[in-house]
């Protein structure tokens, strides 16, 4: 019981802060407070459902340049994917608690921000924190930023305490960015991310089927659990990923507002030391329909190559020679995602204070094509989000 209280206490602290902050802001008069509640539902064609209620709040002083904020969410995940079915396991359900807090101070051209986050499931504990430095130049026409973050994850197994089984995973995040006002309608940003990961992030539940060379050639993309079970060798080791990874991302962002509509275009180029390369393009066109309503279509494209150790069917001679690196994580294989969606923002506040209450909703669908994976060759996902935000 004590342990349970200790786990949920930070979450309650964030919730309390979210509820108290707007009240404090209103009492002070010269502060602005925000509180929001969001609910999202995710469903995919692999029988995975995620329900996520979120609350968030914050206070800022626009004149002094400081602000604090917090967020708390719960992920309720229910899954019965083909991977689970292939191990003769039943549908499982898991609850994840996650929270983050942040503070920023930017009285003039120079600013600092710090943040911390944590998340908990019975088999995964995560902590992270970081800071960002920003500097405005050229009368705020040019902004430079640099940030550093450190994360620590403890990976365990459900039903087994972390003291009996756990793996530590540490990562460092570094980012430098520049934002430039090109003209009164155009803003451009460029950023470079560098992430260093150390530790074993292999899934302790993911078993990898092995095949003889002859049988491996009979395994095609999307092979069924029955086909795999009939051809695989008896030996079925756990996933094993490399213990180190460096990841690089170069991102460009363009925001253009010539009139009553805004075009936003993001492009990310990514590469890492596991030999994965990817390109991601995100496009939104936000149109104002009067003073209160904004609607936007959204399109997202993502393509990635497989990691160097990816194989559809891992081969063994049956003499205990297991491939040193092996994975069944489809998101490490070659894939393409095509996403499209719609969003709406509706300002509900009284005239002159329209943004005091804002209701927004988005629906996004993603089609994924897996080029070389067991059990599944495609996936359809839908995410719906409704958010209500109040400003005091």
């Amino acid at each position, binding site marked *: 019981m004590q342990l349970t209280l200790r786990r949920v206490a930070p979450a309650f602290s964030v919730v309390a802060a979210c509820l108290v902050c707007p009240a404090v802001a209103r009492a002070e008069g010269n502060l602005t407070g925000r509180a929001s509640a969001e609910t999202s539902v995710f469903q995919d064609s692999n029988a995975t459902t995620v329900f996520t209620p979120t609350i968030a709040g914050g206070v800022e002083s626009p004149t002094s340049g400081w602000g604090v904020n917090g967020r708390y969410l719960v992920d309720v995940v229910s899954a019965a994917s083909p991977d689970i079915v292939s191990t003769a396991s039943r549908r499982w359900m898991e609850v994840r608690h996650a929270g983050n807090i942040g503070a920023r101070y930017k009285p003039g051209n120079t600013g600092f921000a710090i943040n911390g986050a944590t998340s908990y499931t019975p088999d995964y504990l995560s902590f992270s924190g970081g800071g960002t430095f920003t500097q405005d130049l050229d009368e705020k026409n040019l902004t430079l930023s640099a*940030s550093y973050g450190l994360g620590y994850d403890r990976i365990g197994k459900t039903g087994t305490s972390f003291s009996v089984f756990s793996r530590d995973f540490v990562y460092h995040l570094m*980012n430098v960015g520049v934002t430039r006002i090109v003209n009164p309608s155009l803003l451009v940003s*460029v950023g470079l991310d560098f992430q260093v990961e150390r530790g074993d992030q292999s899934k302790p539940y993911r078993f990898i089927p092995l095949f003889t060379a002859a049988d491996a050639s009979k395994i095609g993309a999307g092979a069924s659990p029955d086909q795999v079970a009939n051809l695989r060798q008896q030996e079925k080791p756990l996933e094993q990923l490399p213990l180190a990874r460096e990841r690089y991302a170069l991102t460009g962002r363009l925001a253009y*507002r010539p009139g009553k509509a805004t075009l936003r275009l993001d492009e990310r180029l990514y590469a890492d030391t596991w030999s994965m390369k990817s390109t*991601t393009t995100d496009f939104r066109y936000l149109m104002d329909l009067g003073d209160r309503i904004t609607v936007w279509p959204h399109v*997202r494209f993502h393509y990635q190559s497989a990691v160097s150790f990816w194989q559809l069917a891992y081969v063994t001679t049956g003499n205990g020679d297991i491939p040193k690196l092996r994975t069944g994580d489809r998101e490490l294989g070659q894939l393409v995602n095509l996403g499209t969606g719609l969003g709406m923002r509706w300002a509900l506040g009284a005239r002159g204070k329209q943004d005091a209450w804002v209701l927004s909703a988005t629906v996004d669908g993603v089609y994924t094509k897996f080029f070389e994976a067991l059990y599944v060759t495609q996936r359809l996902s839908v995410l719906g*989000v409704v958010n209500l935000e109040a400003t005091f």
Partner: protein
Amino acid sequence: MMHRSLSFGLALLLLAVVSGCSHVHAYERGKLAHPSMAPASLVGPGEEHMYSVHEGATGGDTAGGGGCGCN
């Protein structure tokens, strides 16, 4: 090789960003102050979580401020 390609790409983009810019005064930033022109990503936490699960890549929430010239 990868480092060199990324550095080259970054240099090219920086060049494109800083060239051809006009000096925009505070009173000319009405459009830039619109919420849809925020320098940070407009992707919400739920959407971001979905992409982090569906995409093997990471990173991209670039930029830490600027735009409307507010604090």
